[in-house]
């Protein structure tokens, strides 16, 4: 197998995921509506109730809308990562996974390409969301747009790998939906996506510690700094390590077993 063949294969997998995404209009619609609802409705209410004091990387007092932008971007990535993994379980149930397994290219490479495709889709959705967010006076500099891209890509790769790992552990499609509720919501709410950690600490010390150990917190903080053209080194280190570990575990534990097999 030549390098070109690997490249064609990777591009083919990415294209397929993009085509599928645009064919599933409801998925595209909900991917944008969900965070926009949070931004416009939820944040408007909380803006009045909550004040966010000066904290890094912000140089001045910021509105609540501005504060939750990185969290909502990560929410998009989290949902996309989990939904794409859900599609792996669906593919396995429906038999389409067999097509992937008939490739002469190594399975870990194919799964790696799948993760790249998931990350690329997440990146597209985040940028569409950020453009929409401009309408509610959330300003992001051009530099912020540029530096956010690698951060989103890394986060998306991590969350995609996490989804892939979960999909390997789940035997049936029905079980996956249940597990999602125990993964997506705790990950999102027990993080700095909606409230700064120091506010969590004031409210409950054990919730604060749960947030501290939640890798999603580091995803949010990595992106928060990246949107300001800065690198949060500790968040970057945590996410990079978590990505490597999760991706390796996902690739090792991936089992293409089909439900019709006895």
């Amino acid at each position, binding site marked *: 197998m030549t390098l070109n063949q*690997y490249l*064609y294969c990777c591009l*083919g997998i990415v*294209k*397929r995921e993009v085509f599928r995404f645009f064919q599933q209009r409801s998925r595209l619609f909900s991917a944008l509506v969900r965070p926009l609802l949070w931004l416009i409705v939820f944040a408007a209410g909380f803006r009045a109730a909550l004040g966010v004091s000066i904290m890094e990387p912000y140089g001045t007092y910021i509105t609540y809308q501005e504060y939750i932008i990185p969290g909502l971007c990560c929410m998009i990535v989290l949902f996309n990562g989990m939904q794409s993994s859900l599609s792996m379980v669906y593919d396995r149930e429906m038999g*389409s996974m*067999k097509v*992937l397994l*008939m490739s*002469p290219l190594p399975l870990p490479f194919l799964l790696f390409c799948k993760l790249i495709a998931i990350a690329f889709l997440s990146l597209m959705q985040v940028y569409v969301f950020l453009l929409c967010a401009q309408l509610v006076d959330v300003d992001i500099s051009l530099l912020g747009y540029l530096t956010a891209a690698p951060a989103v890509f890394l986060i998306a790769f991590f969350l995609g790998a996490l989804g892939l790992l979960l999909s390997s552990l789940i035997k049936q499609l029905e079980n996956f939906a249940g597990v999602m509720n125990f993964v997506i919501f705790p990950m999102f709410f027990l993080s700095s996506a909606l409230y700064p950690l120091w506010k969590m600490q004031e409210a409950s010390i054990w919730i604060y510690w749960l947030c501290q150990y939640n890798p999603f917190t580091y995803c949010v903080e990595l992106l928060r700094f990246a949107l300001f053209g800065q690198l949060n080194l500790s968040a970057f280190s945590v996410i990079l390590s978590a990505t490597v570990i999760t991706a390796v575990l996902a690739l090792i534990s991936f089992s293409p077993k089909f439900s019709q097999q006895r």
Partner: protein
Amino acid sequence: MGIVTNNLSFAYGKKKALNNINLSLANGFNILLGPNGAGKSTLFSLLTGLTQTVNGTIEINGDKLSDNKSKIMSQMGVVFQQSTLDLDLSVKQNLLYYAALHGIAPKKALVNIDIILAQLSLTERLHDKVRTLNGGHRRRVEIARALIHQPKVLLLDEATVGLDVESRLLIISYVRNLCTQRDICVLWTTHLMDEVESTDQLIIINKGEIQAQDQSSKLCEQYQVTDVYQLYFALTQNTEAV
């Protein structure tokens, strides 16, 4: 060359699905005939590498499947019993995706796709979503997909099940022609006896064991029966197949 299995056995837990299967399939049209639950799909799953071989060996065109899976997969085309097309994508997108999985450049793949779809009278459906195609057309797309990378071995698992007579005839005659034109090894799995011709290499499987393996007409002669129906009933004592 073709497909060779040596002492191939497989069990689901304690239940034996295949017992000591020794096959030797040369290039040409080979039919694997057996009732439901005979072990055809298990054998198919082992031959395609979807299920790992534990006991026995499989050789495809002289290469051991366990040692050269990548090489073998690049030479193997497969049509599964259950449809594996992506319903939300068009025919073209499905075919290009498969070509990409085999590392074929889109330009080259499109040339192959045009030729194969023309042969299968599907050119006009190139941009249609698979969801809008009928069962016969979907099957033809799956066959086209299995041929994009010009395989030397083609495996089809009950490829005509659920199709009307016209579609069945079109598909089986296309694969037979392909076999002659390209000199490839085709393994056609079925439980429909009317798909067997006297010149076909016939393998009858029942309860996980090969009951007979030779040219269809020779087997009829050997067992002193007049047709495949009688041969099948004599070897399997099964009246399920038609």
